[in-house]
Structure formats: structure tokens, C-alpha cells
């Protein structure tokens, strides 16, 4: 009895927090996806305040609900290919970002996990150091680095000129967006990978070598499969936030490097079409859940086959 009380006391506050600030807003948003936009943006009201009496009057009822609720927002999403295309493009960006992060983070995490206790703490500190300065400032820094006036761009273009290649503009391109996404998310891949690799039993590598495995085989047969939980954790931490990112495409991207995040922001803030913005948000959440489900299914199937 006491035990149960303690459980509720401990898990109660965070549960309440999630309920208030996640579950309820999500429900509101899901509902909003079926409503009409208001005349001046936002949502078409369901309740009206009588200007004379001040009494509230509910406008929606069983007879006229079709005037207030609709599938049209969803139809629009599926009928105009541009939205699906934007989704696919965003998945593509997030996927590339995740892939590049894995390739860059793996050796780094491995190096940290293999260094002495003291250097290890220092290296971890250096990985999280960028968080100490503001996210936007760091992205602005990239604008300067990639901008046409920077030494980086100038040196690069001179080198390209030697090979007879036209000068390139780095900023406001897909390339810049990927660089920004990778830069911002890299620590989220390094940390779970490091946490995983650090726990590996070195005796397993000795055993593999003793039993005839060369360095390449030791990595692919032992280290890599055992690090998959870390890879998955890092993938979740990188892919999902990267998918919804809007600040980086806004600042570093060109006209054609928009992502879903930008579109959602546009719907809510610029076009003030809240219902359609809600539809986009819901579709984004659903597609992430679908991907997670497919990954989990593939994972369990892979295990069962062994």
C-alpha cells in the first residue's frame, strides 16, 4: 500500500506535467485539424459571446456540425503532391544528417571510450561544450563561415579555380542545411554511442582475435552489433529533432531547402491557417511513429530469425 503511494508520489508530478503540456495540447491540436480556419486566421469559433448580454452561445450542434468540422484539411494534404514531396525531402535531409552523424560520431565515441579516465571526462566535456552558447548564435556563426566573404569560402573557391571549377556559393544551399543539421545534432549521436562503447568488454575483442578474426572482422562481428542499441538511441535523438527543424533551413537554406518544420511554422505564424498546420503536425508525428514501429518490427524479426 505504502509502496504504491510512494510510486504515485514519485511518478505523479512528471505524469501530470506530461498530461498538461503534452497530451492535452496534442488532443487540442488533433481536434483543430478537423476545424475550419477563422475569417482572420486561427480557428473558426465554436462558441460565440453575445455582445449584448455577454452570454456564451455554443454554435455547433448535431444538425450543423458539418459547417464546423471537415476532412478537407487532410484531403488537401494528400491531394497536393507538394506536401508529400516536402515530407519526403525532410525525411531525406534527416536521414542524411543521421547517417553523417553516425559516420562522424562513431570513431569519436570509440576514441573517447578507449582513452584514460581523465582524458575521457575532458573529451566528453568538449563534446557538450557547444551547448554552453546559444543555438542561434552557433547557427549564425555558420552563416559567417559559409558566407561568400569568409576565408573558408574564398580559399575553397581559389582551390576550385585551380581545377577550373566555377566558384560555389556555400551559404543558402542544401549543403549548408545539412552542415548545420549535422553540426547541431552531432553531440546527440556521440553521447549515446560513447555510453554504449564504454561498457564493451575488451576481453570479447581479445577472444575474437584469438579465434582468428582480423581487425575488420572484429569490428563488424563484435563491436558493431553490440553497439547497435547506442546507434539506435543516437538515431532517435538525431533523426526526430532534425526532421522537425525549421531554424536551420530558415537561416542557412535557400529557397528550395525548406523542410516540414518551416511549412508548419508558416501555416501557424504567416498564413495563420491553424487547421492545416495541425494536419501537418499530426502527419509528422504519425510518420515518425510509423517509422519507429517498422524499425521495432524489423528488429524483432531479425532477432527471431537468428
Amino acid at each position, binding site marked *: 500500500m505504502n509502496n504504491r503511494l510512494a510510486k504515485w508520489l514519485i511518478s505523479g508530478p512528471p505524469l501530470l506535467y506530461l498530461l498538461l503540456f503534452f497530451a492535452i495540447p496534442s488532443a487540442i491540436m488533433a481536434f483543430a485539424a478537423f476545424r475550419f480556419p477563422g475569417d482572420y486566421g486561427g480557428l473558426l469559433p465554436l462558441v460565440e459571446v453575445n455582445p449584448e448580454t455577454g452570454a456564451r452561445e455554443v454554435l455547433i450542434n448535431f444538425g450543423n456540425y458539418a459547417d464546423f468540422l471537415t476532412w478537407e484539411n487532410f484531403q488537401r494534404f494528400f491531394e497536393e503532391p507538394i506536401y508529400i514531396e516536402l515530407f519526403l525531402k525532410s525525411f531525406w535531409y534527416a536521414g542524411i544528417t543521421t547517417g553523417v552523424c553516425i559516420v562522424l560520431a562513431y570513431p569519436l565515441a570509440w576514441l573517447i571510450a578507449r582513452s584514460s579516465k581523465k582524458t575521457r571526462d575532458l573529451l566528453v566535456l568538449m563534446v557538450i561544450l557547444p551547448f554552453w552558447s546559444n543555438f542561434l548564435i552557433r547557427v549564425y556563426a555558420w552563416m559567417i563561415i559559409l558566407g561568400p566573404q569568409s576565408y573558408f569560402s574564398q580559399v575553397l573557391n581559389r582551390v576550385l579555380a585551380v581545377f577550373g571549377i566555377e566558384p560555389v556559393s556555400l551559404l543558402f544551399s542544401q549543403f549548408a542545411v545539412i552542415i548545420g543539421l549535422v553540426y547541431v545534432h552531432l553531440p546527440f549521436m556521440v553521447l549515446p554511442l560513447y555510453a554504449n562503447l564504454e561498457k564493451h568488454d575488451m*576481453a570479447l575483442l*581479445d577472444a*575474437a*582475435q584469438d579465434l582468428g*578474426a582480423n581487425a575488420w572482422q572484429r569490428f563488424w562481428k563484435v563491436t558493431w*552489433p*553490440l553497439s547497435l542499441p547506442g546507434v539506435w538511441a543516437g538515431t532517435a535523438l538525431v533523426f526526430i529533432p532534425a526532421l522537425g527543424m525549421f531554424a536551420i533551413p530558415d537561416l542557412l537554406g535557400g529557397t528550395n531547402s525548406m523542410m516540414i518544420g518551416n511549412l508548419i511554422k508558416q501555416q501557424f505564424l504567416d498564413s495563420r491557417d491553424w487547421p492545416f498546420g495541425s494536419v501537418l503536425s499530426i502527419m509528422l508525428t504519425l510518420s515518425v511513429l510509423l517509422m519507429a514501429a517498422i524499425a521495432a518490427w524489423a528488429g524483432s524479426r531479425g532477432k527471431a530469425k537468428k
Partner: protein
Amino acid sequence: MALLEIRDVVKTFGDFTAVNHVSLSVEAGEFFTLLGPSGCGKTTLLRMLAGFEQPDSGEILLDGKNMAGVPPEKRPVHTVFQSYALFPHMTVAQNIAFPLKMAGVAAAEIPKRVNKVLEDVRLQQFARRYPHELSGGQRQRVAIARALVNRPRLLLLDEPLSALDAKLREQMQIELINLQKEVGITFVYVTHDQGEALALSHRIAVMNSGQVEQLDAPETIYSYPKSRFVADFIGQCNLLDATIVEIGSERMKVEIAGVGVAEALPVAGAQIGGKGTLTLRPEKIKLGAALPADDANEVHFKGKVHDCLYLGDVTIYMVELDNGMLVETMLPNSASGKAKFFDDDDLVELAWRYDAGHFVLA
């Protein structure tokens, strides 16, 4: 030609010498044991055989081939690690198939070989389990099966039984002996447990601080330890400081200060006045209230029981000699109904044959 030759191998870590001029050879089919206290360099020597460490000097020859510069994955030597080091993400069968795959054995051949060795270690029904679903003894057997499946020239075992409880350890010892006989692969076995070494080995190398103190068959090591260290390390042993007073061809006389003169087998290098230690196993000492003094091959001493230690099958009696020295003796509790023959402070007599003890020069 010996299967394995270790020639004057030295290994240092910084200014610490872990293995100090070790030379020995192991014959094909032998169960060879490296025995010694913790930190004496057994694992270091084994790791050099496996190829994980390189000797600073000296050479290691396997089948007459110098192993210098041959990496572990290229040596026909497999190791059973103390922690087993089973791959946690692979089933028992996959673990055992690993060395076969690495060696490029044909895929069709692999299941046959895996099943055969699973049979040898009696684990057929566990083939599809993961290591964490096995008991300690079963994991141990998987580790051995995995190291054996590709039929290495040499199997190295580093304290493979130390993580098991006493009962299981004994059972695994019997299994190991049988397995070694069956597969005919040469075992180099590391342990700090002298009982295990005596029970398992054809030959034992007793190591002490990086050096081999004695290399002999178990019976020889036990009965004729070459040094005080070996006598003390292997089994229970009385170590009586003594001085040589007379040397004959068959036997020599040594004086135990304050107690009297005893006889022992002559040893090489003995000189009158030479100091050393008479090593005497407790079970080789006769103990009685009054012993007949008619055997010229025996020496006799009087003493007083100081402590008794009842162990069930035997009782240990610590007997105090005239000079205050304590000698450990034991009597089997075989007499019906009797558990103890003497009590503290009883006066007793000790006797032992001249060839029961073994004198080692200091």
C-alpha cells in the same frame, strides 16, 4: 621435437619483470600446467603464447616455427579466457561457429562440426540459447567448445574453473581430463590452485615471481619439492630448519636445532654444515602415544599436542617439539566410533622414515 618450445623468454612492464628467463617445452598431447601464486606471471606467459604480448627477448616456437611477429589471429592457438568472453549477441551455436567462419570453413560443413563439439561437451540441447541464459558451468563448456572446435595445435586455459563453486569445479576437472584425452589436443593450463594442478596435469611448472622453480610430474613435485617455496606452495608441508651433520651414500643426517638429529635422503650439492630445510608432509608422519622404536629406518621425537583440528575424515594435530617448534601431523578417523585420538596437552611420539622427508638446501 616438442610441440611448444619456450626459450629464455623475458617480459618486462616498465622496470617490473613479469616473466624472467623462462625456458620450457611442452610435448604434443600433454596436459601441461603453469602453477603459481597470484602475480607470478602465468597470464603474461600465456598471453605471449597466444600472441597478445611480445617477449622482450627469447623465442617461442610452435611446431618448430618461430612465433615472433605472428599476430594472435594467425596462430593455431586458441584460448579459454577466465571470464569466458562469450559473445553475448550470439547463440551458443553461433559462438562455436565463429572460429570456423573466421577460418573460412565451408558453410555446409559448419553445422556438422558445431554439433560434434556440442556433443563432446554435452550441450546439444543448448545450441540455440544465448550465453546469459546459461549457468556458469554451461558457459564454461561453451567457451571450451568454442576454443576446441577448430582443433588448434595448442589450447590455452587461464584459470577456467576459478569462477565455479567447489562442487562444480571438481566435476569440471574430471570432464576436462576426459575431454583432453578424447580430443588429444595439447593443453596449457594456468591455475593458482595446487590441488587442481596435481589432479589434472601430466607435468607442472611451478612459477614464482616470473621464474620456473620446478618442472616435474605432479608426484615428483609433491614428494620431492626442489625448493622451500615449492614445498610450501604445494599442499601442506612442515618446513624444519636443519643443518647437515653427516653425509652417506644412502642417507644423510641433519640436525634440527633444539630437537635432535634426523635422517634424510642425500641431495646434490650437500656439504657438512650446509643449512637448509627438511620438508615433511603431515600425512607421512606417524603419531602415537608410544611408538615402537625397532625400525632403524625411522627417526623418533617426543612432543606435546598443541591444537587439534577436526576435519571429519581426518584430524590435524599440531604437535609442539622440545624447541617449541610446531609440527603438523594428521590421523585418519577410521577407527570405529572414535573421532579423536588425542586431546590438547597429551604427550605423544612422532616418527617418520628417512625417505619420507626431503631436504632442500637454502
